[in-house]
């Protein structure tokens, strides 16, 4: 119990360090810009999109502002969200190593496993902040520029305003879960180097490679093992009744990545000589 409460204080400290950094806020602000720019662009263009034209959901934004968050999430998923996620994940261990603070944390003593777990959970909190930023700012700007009312789902059913907020939260949660595998991958890469930028770049490159492989039909046997495979499948959460199939497969796949790369990060970090 004693040790547990102290881990909480380390977790709080980790978040304080992360959210004291201007970089963290700059990235969240940039994420918030996605729905804002999207909504403004749609509002300013006089042309009405025919249903189905443009990215998914885009045609619905003008009918119901609450769709802005969903559309923004879709737009951010291939590159922008993974980019910010990679920055945070790549920074975990390599960032502390390059500052030199890693050696002082270790002789505090923080415990290597404990530090690794807290670092990972910190990045999950950032992913949560990022996905909710998309939804919250999407909802706000959508409500300002467009009519807001009961949402017509992809299945054609209508749900109440309150229920649609629930769906927004659910999609943000789904997207966060989608990121957890990549976060574990980034954490592992971060234990390999003392150059945080290198770890960040490697992580984001792997996210790109995974998406490219996912688009090659010749590799269809591989697709369901790629951590990006279910990223865009949150549309299933916008049906009535909710289809949780992809949610479960996604969560299972991400858990697999967490297990594999978490174990690799652990075995690497606990035996590593800290020479920085």
């Amino acid at each position: 119990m004693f040790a547990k409460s102290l881990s909480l204080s380390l977790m709080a400290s980790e978040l304080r360090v992360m959210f004291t950094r201007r970089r963290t806020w700059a990235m969240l602000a940039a994420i918030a810009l996605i729905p804002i720019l999207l909504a403004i662009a749609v509002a300013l263009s006089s042309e009405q999109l025919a249903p189905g034209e443009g990215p998914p959901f885009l045609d619905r934004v003008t009918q119901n502002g609450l769709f802005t968050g969903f559309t923004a999430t879709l737009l951010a998923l291939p590159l922008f969200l993974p980019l910010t996620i990679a920055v945070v994940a790549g920074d975990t261990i390599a960032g502390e190593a390059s500052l030199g603070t890693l050696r002082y944390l270790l002789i505090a003593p923080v415990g290597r496993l404990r530090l690794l777990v807290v670092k990972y959970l910190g990045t999950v909190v950032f992913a949560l902040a990022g996905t909710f930023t998309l939804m919250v700012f999407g909802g706000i700007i959508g409500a300002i520029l467009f009519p807001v009312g009961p949402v017509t789902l992809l299945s054609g059913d209508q749900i109440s305003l309150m229920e649609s907020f629930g769906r927004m939260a659910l999609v943000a949660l789904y997207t966060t879960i989608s990121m957890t595998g990549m976060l574990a991958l980034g954490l592992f890469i971060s234990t390999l180097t003392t150059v945080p930028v290198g770890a960040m770049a490697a992580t984001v490159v792997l996210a790109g490679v995974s998406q490219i492989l996912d688009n090659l039909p010749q590799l269809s046997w591989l697709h369901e093992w790629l951590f990006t495979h279910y990223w865009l499948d949150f549309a299933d959460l916008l049906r009535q009744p909710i289809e949780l199939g992809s949610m479960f497969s996604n969560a299972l796949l991400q858990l697999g990545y967490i297990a594999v790369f978490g174990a690799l990060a652990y075995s690497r970090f606990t035996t590593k000589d800290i020479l920085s």
Partner: protein
Amino acid sequence: MDNAIELAIKTSSLTKQFGSQKAVNNIDLSVPKGSVFGFLGPNGSGKTTSIRMILGLAEASQGQIELLGHPIPKELELALPKVGALVEGPAFYPYMSGRNNLIRIDSADRFANSKTRAERVDAALERVGLTNAAKKKVHAYSLGMKQRLGLANALLKPREILILDEPTNGLDPQGTREVRNLIRSLANEGITIFVSSHLLSEIEQLCSHLAVMTAGKIVAQGSIEELRKESQTRLILKSDRIDEVVDLLKQQGLSKLSLKPDRIVAPVPGDFDVASLNQLLVKKKFMISEIRLEQPSLEEYFVNLTGEGFEVVR
């Protein structure tokens, strides 16, 4: 080393190999409890690598380490809470204040009491004279201030030993003096201090014990008195008829005389009787303009062991 003396740090055959190079080569350190132990060696001699192994940051390639009686790395987590350390310069989050940096590191210590945290942090800041700069962000600190903050970090809790790697690096003479005074007052509280430096003058006045390291090996170790004894006393003599004086000295049983243009230098035992020799020389009507015994400084002894040391040894 006498086993009756309790040791704060003990290493046996400690070795660290990077590739084919032995950064630390088979060293046996014995740091008595309560001592102020100077760990001396030129840059690149392996001091910091040794310290990293003692603190469990790096794994030894060979050999054993005991820190405060705990085998390292097996019982690392039992030893570290009793150890305050400054390793290879201070390191902090530049975008956080000095105070918040200390709070961060103290939160990482799973054995630290969070209830007394704020109090302990402020006391440590006060002790190193940083109270007024506590709320400034670290990127606005001078190197000297960072060094002090690093010392404050080592003092967050009552410690049994402080391991300080080059604690006066980057400090002005005033700051160096303050750090020395701080170390002295901590030593007076009974804390063992293990302090590394590449400059003997920085730590000579502080230390009760010294180890000299060069090229990965320890070439001398012991209390200051023991080391002084090992340095050879010399007789210095100036006279008009040097050749004849040399003959006389040889008759007196002195050997290994070295002749400088204006004087004779001869190694002698520490209790050599200069007065009798002088009497003898005067009786033989030599003109003696100078005769004295000289004890080489520890500095000279150190330079003899490590070389002048501007060039990196390897």
